[in-house]
């Protein structure tokens, strides 16, 4: 039979264990809650700062900014970006960005999209740790060099001759984007450029292919782009789309994939539609003001602006349908530009 003292000692130990466990659980709970709260707070503060940075970048065009970031992953989709659990809508903005930014820095670049009047500022976002490889052949070398000059110098980009693709090494980048200005070899040969990138995840190695780059060093105003993705050691085509002016071709370089590119383009066309409506109404007012007999009446004819409204509405609903529709927008904006010059010639109020 146990003595009373022994029972007391055992009971003390059980009591200490229970009390210790309660204290332990209590503090673990507090630490966990605090960690979650702190993560949300940090993400929220980064989202707010990023929002201010993006707003600033969007209103000052033609600028490149390098932004230092805390070591966080920033995910981008067509209509939003998110840092940790905190999302932020970007539905009203035209932003081309990779689906994930992991680096400690972020490059923002802004360009105007003019058709021929300013429609919107396009914001491009990337990371210096993301690798861009511009592939050319003898016909497109000049174009490749021109594109290389136009893209921000802060980007991690390189020019590679198509015949030397087999020598391409893996530089441990978390994503690689090829820009083919020459025909792509889809099959598993050294010429497809994938030989030394086999270890990378398929979704991290993607490409765009400008199907008809021409031989000039000037990118044509419209064109067809194919999106490709690595699958093992071959390229697989993900689909075809179009660009309208070089600003949207750059968009394809920065966009994560075909779906995101098309979605952002739809937003850009929606904005074109809205801005065109303003110019149509403005020209209608000016036409009424000048009157039928005035020389300024005809330069403010709204037929082309109305066409632009219709074309942009179609693209905002169904982009990408066909290249002819994109070419129609290009022809219309050239006509509006001519019409504006005519207005200037007659010393009338300009269209834009």
């Amino acid at each position: 039979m146990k003595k009373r003292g022994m029972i007391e000692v055992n009971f003390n130990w059980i009591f200490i264990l229970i009390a210790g466990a309660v204290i332990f659980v209590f503090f673990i709970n507090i630490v966990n809650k605090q960690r979650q709260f702190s993560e949300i707070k940090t993400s929220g503060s980064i989202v707010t700062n990023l929002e201010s940075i993006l707003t600033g970048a969007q209103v000052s065009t033609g600028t490149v900014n390098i932004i230092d970031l805390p070591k966080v992953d920033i995910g981008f989709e067509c209509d939003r970006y998110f840092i940790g659990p905190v999302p932020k809508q970007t539905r009203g903005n035209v932003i081309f960005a990779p689906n994930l930014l992991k680096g400690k820095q972020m490059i923002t670049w802004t360009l105007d999209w003019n058709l021929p009047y300013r429609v919107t500022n396009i914001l491009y976002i990337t990371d210096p740790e993301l690798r861009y490889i511009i592939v050319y052949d003898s016909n497109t070398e000049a174009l490749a060099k021109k594109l290389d000059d136009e893209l921000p110098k802060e980007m991690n980009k390189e020019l590679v001759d198509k015949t030397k693709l087999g020598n391409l090494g893996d530089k441990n980048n978390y994503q690689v984007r090829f820009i083919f200005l020459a025909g792509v070899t889809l099959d598993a040969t050294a010429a497809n450029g994938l030989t030394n990138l086999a270890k990378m995840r398929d979704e991290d190695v993607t490409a765009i292919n400008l199907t008809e780059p021409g031989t000039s060093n000037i990118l044509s105003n419209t064109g067809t782009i194919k999106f490709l993705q690595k699958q093992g050691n071959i390229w697989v085509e993900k689909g075809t789309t179009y660009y309208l002016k070089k600003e949207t071709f750059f968009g394809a370089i920065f966009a994560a994939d075909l779906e995101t590119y098309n979605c952002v383009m739809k937003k850009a066309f929606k904005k074109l539609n809205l801005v065109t409506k303003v110019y149509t109404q403005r020209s209608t007012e000016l036409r009424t003001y000048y009157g039928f007999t005035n020389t300024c009446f005809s330069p403010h004819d709204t037929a082309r602006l109305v066409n632009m409204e219709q074309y942009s509405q179609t693209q905002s609903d169904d982009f990408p349908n066909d290249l002819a529709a994109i070419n129609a927008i290009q022809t219309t904006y050239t006509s509006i530009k001519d019409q504006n010059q005519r207005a200037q010639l007659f010393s009338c109020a300009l269209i834009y």
Partner: protein
Amino acid sequence: MKTKAQIQMGESVGILFIFFILVMFSFVFYMNVMQSSAKSDSEENIQLKAIGIAQKASFLPELQCSEENIRQENCIDLLKLEASANLLSENNLYYYDIFEFSDIKVKRVFPFGNAHEWILYNHSSSNYSSKLSTFIPTSLYDPETKKYDFGVLSVEVYKR
């Protein structure tokens, strides 16, 4: 009569009780400090948002003056303004993504006697906790007469 062990146990429970009370007090104090810091952060955020929205509004291609697509800063084209006032109200949902809960107005203040107010965007929140106003002086260009008036772009951002 209580035994020595019972007294010891009572002491231990008492100490634990006081310990937890102290922890609770510290926790409540810490939470209050955090809450006030979150409040000041949120105040700063709303100010940043207000400035951002004002910036977006003043650089809107739907409003800005331009000649041969060369833009004039701090200038609103009156014909574009007339057109945009309708456009923004017809596409309220689209512009909500840009301007959120805010009111954007343009008021002509000069020449005197010709005052006029254009309501560009009106998406005020009925149950807002605070409101921040930003006023941007701007010229108003009339392309018909090629004359400039003077006005104020006012942006009121609501915090819910």
